């Protein structure tokens, strides 16, 4: 089973990396970029039947730091 786990910074958490990317886009002449937030994507292959609870546990205990990040699990078709 293929999973895609998207980890993003919580709203309000400063993202200097996103800011730097935003400025670089402006430098390339792309006007109107109002905000960039950088995140992470993890692509996992897990055994069929892996429970939602186990996947959620993986996210909370390692893949995301829930103090500063949110996560979302997408199941590949």
């Amino acid at each position, binding site marked *: 089973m293929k999973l895609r786990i998207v980890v993003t910074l919580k709203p309000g*958490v400063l993202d*200097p990396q996103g800011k*730097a990317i935003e400025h670089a886009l402006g430098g390339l002449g792309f006007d109107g970029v109002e905000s960039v937030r950088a995140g992470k994507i993890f692509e996992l292959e897990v055994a069929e039947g892996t429970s939602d609870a186990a996947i959620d546990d993986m996210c909370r*205990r*390692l893949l995301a*730091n829930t*103090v500063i990040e949110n996560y979302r699990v997408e199941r590949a078709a």
Partner: protein
Amino acid sequence: MKAAVLVFPGSNCDRDLATAIRDVTGSTPQMVWHADSELPAGVDLVAVPGGFSYGDYLRCGAISARAPIMGAVKEAAERGVPVLGVCNGFQILTEAGLLPGALIRNAGLDFVCRDVALTVGESRSAFTSGYTPGETIAVPVAHHDGNYVADAETLDRLEGDGRVAFRYAADVNGSARAIAGITNERGNVLGMMPHPERRIEAAHGGTDGRRLFEGLLAAVA
């Protein structure tokens, strides 16, 4: 004093920390590999060193915080054993849940490596017992991810309970409320980004870090 210094793949301040502890306390700490699951019996200080453990993969300190030795560190902390995390050690302690909040990329994006002025907080922990609250000391920082963040409620609680051990006298990395170091509720776990182990003897350019270890020694002895 029976101290243990943890060593992770990519730790690079472990020997500095061990030397500082030896110089101040007169006893040589035991180096403990991350893959071990037990601390030396009767340990009375656990030191988590700076460095770039696991190359900062995933998040700074994230992988190390889940290392086998950390179970024993949590148990020791619960028993009241002092646990000191410096720089990457602070990041590891927050990732392990031993301290609240998180450390993210410096607001200015630069790696900051220089002496900074720190104001000693109102903390009543043994770690700051060698200092006077409000006093200013000079200790170096060397980090890319030292920007302390936590929600407002946590920050209020840290300040209200006197758990801010050190603050930057002037902004260094964008840290919330200029926090450079905090303790847990009980006061036996301290995490700080600046490196007190780099200011132990006059040849280091100052000795302001020494009193942190002296205070600990006095508390343990």
